């Protein structure tokens, strides 16, 4: 090595002042915080707490206002039933929204698959389990189409799913002729299609298999998102796709799989919806895609991706159900129910933005 004095080989001259300064590296300040700050921090760490608090408060409020008609085991189980389909779609929607996408086609996929299941089992004479499996596969396939267009053709998810929403809707009309398959026909030919409408009674509560299915789907997705690499990758992609890519995640492959899983969940939802509605109804659930987004947003999942717990949308769907049921039972016009849900959605996004502003 040559003469070391020619170039500085230690800290720069101006940096010697640092020796006297604090040596800690940007630690957390333990400054006094207001209660408000602390609440913000707590919610930042536990984003699902907002919807949980809202749910508990709204149940309590309607319990007081509407009395036992509202606050009964039976009504609670009824609300579960009523939100089960939107809840399942919200689970599918959450996956996509976690990747900073959006899926406007979830409802259309579900209705189309229910029509396919019904047509195959009732008119084509296929064994019902096979018809159901084809419906599942169709759901996954529809999701794969969305995923392919988003990743490989590089179109924005909003545009892609706006398109496929219309495409699946048109296919639904073509296949069904807008005609329902009657409950009684299903009972005769393919009762298995209606299985999720059956229920178990626990005390006064009437819990349908559809409600249980919703809970199970959320539980599985919670496990997958939190305890498998795939789940971590979904969050990472939604957080910062480029960073995820540079971290070595195969983002396109993961994204396609996200849309596929979402489609599959819609396919499962299709089966459950036949049970819930009682018939194969091509006309039902026309607004289900937007309702699912509402549940996701109220559930505290950020539309910007990467943030929020999958359990949030379950709570979100229940909040919507509780509001509808409660407002109805205290005799509020439908109009004002819609009004209330609208504000709820906006407030939910507002709270999300506020929580995200938290500074370390």
């Amino acid at each position: 090595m040559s003469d070391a004095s020619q170039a500085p080989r230690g800290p720069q001259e101006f940096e010697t002042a640092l020796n006297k300064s604090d040596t800690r590296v940007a630690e957390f300040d333990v400054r006094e915080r207001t209660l408000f700050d602390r609440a913000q921090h707590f919610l930042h760490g536990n984003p699902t707490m907002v919807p949980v608090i809202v749910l508990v408060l709204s149940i309590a409020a309607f319990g007081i206002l509407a009395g036992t008609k509202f606050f009964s085991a039976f009504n609670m189980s009824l609300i579960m039933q009523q939100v089960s389909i939107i809840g399942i779609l919200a689970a599918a929607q959450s996956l996509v929204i976690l990747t900073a996408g959006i899926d406007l086609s979830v409802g259309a996929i579900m209705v189309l698959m229910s029509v396919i299941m019904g047509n195959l089992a009732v008119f084509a004479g296929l064994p019902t389990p096979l018809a159901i499996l084809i419906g599942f596969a169709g759901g996954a396939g529809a999701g794969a189409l969305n995923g392919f267009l988003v990743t490989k053709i590089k179109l924005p998810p909003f545009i892609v799913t706006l398109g496929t929403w219309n495409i699946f809707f048109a296919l639904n009309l073509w296949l069904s002729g807008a005609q329902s398959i009657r409950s009684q026909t299903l009972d005769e030919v393919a009762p298995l299609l209606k299985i999720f409408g059956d229920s178990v009674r626990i005390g006064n509560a009437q819990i349908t298999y559809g409600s249980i299915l919703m809970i199970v789907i959320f539980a599985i997705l919670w496990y997958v998102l939190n305890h498998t690499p795939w789940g971590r990758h979904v969050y990472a992609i939604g957080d910062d796709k480029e960073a995820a890519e540079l971290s070595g995640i195969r983002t396109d492959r993961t994204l396609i799989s996200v849309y596929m899983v979402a489609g599959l969940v819609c396919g499962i939802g299709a089966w459950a919806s036949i049970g819930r509605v009682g018939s194969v109804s091509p006309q039902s659930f026309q607004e289900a895609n937007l309702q699912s987004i509402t549940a996701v947003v109220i559930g505290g999942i950020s539309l910007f991706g990467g943030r929020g717990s999958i359990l949030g949308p379950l709570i979100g769907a229940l909040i919507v159900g509780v509001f509808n049921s409660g407002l109805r039972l205290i005799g509020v016009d439908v109009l004002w129910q819609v009004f209330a849900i609208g504000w709820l959605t906006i407030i939910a996004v507002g709270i999300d933005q506020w929580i995200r502003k938290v500074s370390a």
Partner: protein
Amino acid sequence: MNGQEPILSARGLVKRYGRVTALDHADFDLYPGEILAVIGDNGAGKSSLIKALSGAIRIDEGEIRLDGKPVHFHSPLQAREVGIETVYQNLALSPALSIADNMFLGREIYAGGLFGRLFRKLDHKKMQDVARQKLTDLGLMTIQNINQAVETLSGGQRQGVAVARAAAFGSKVVIMDEPTAALGVKESRRVLELIKDVRSRGLPIVLISHNMPHVFEVADRIHIHRLGRRHAIIRPQDFSMSDAVAIMTGAMEPPETAEAA
């Protein structure tokens, strides 16, 4: 260093973007255990060079060798698989995920047993332990909670996490792109210590920086990139910072003796 084989080398790299030639038969050599700084004016092609070495772009011509064997990268993933880790300027961290999750992003550890294999269950505890260990090794354990989200960390702490990740997995080479550019004085100092720390553990480092004092402080050799190719290699002991800048901008002819490699 003569007599030693370069661990990572490149010959005649060419990369064109339409009519612009970003790399014009560029060469590159990195020797074991050294910190090689790469400097160059804006547009000199140094970032293309780094991207070529880290697999982020595909080269049109030329050859890259790792340990003397030719390698071809189609993605950053392939470069990583052979032991070249890159700390990008934007760090490539997911802000909302925890430190441990970020350290293992894309190469998670599975839980053992049937359950782990069947349900692809992550071994959270092990990943946390390893992450904590790696950070402690680099003296970064002022971070208390390995499960806190990266976005709650300061800039220097984030840089620390990214460097720790690269050091933990980079078995051959660590490339650092402007690691001090976004940092304050105090945090820059910490990161420079970290870089020296990584070298002392035997890993060679490619350091891209605009900050001459930092380059002159830590680099063993300086690769000066100009007009799409390697213009000169100098030792910081032999030249002043203003000389380096002069060579870099073409105001001074590169010294004959400097072309050591």
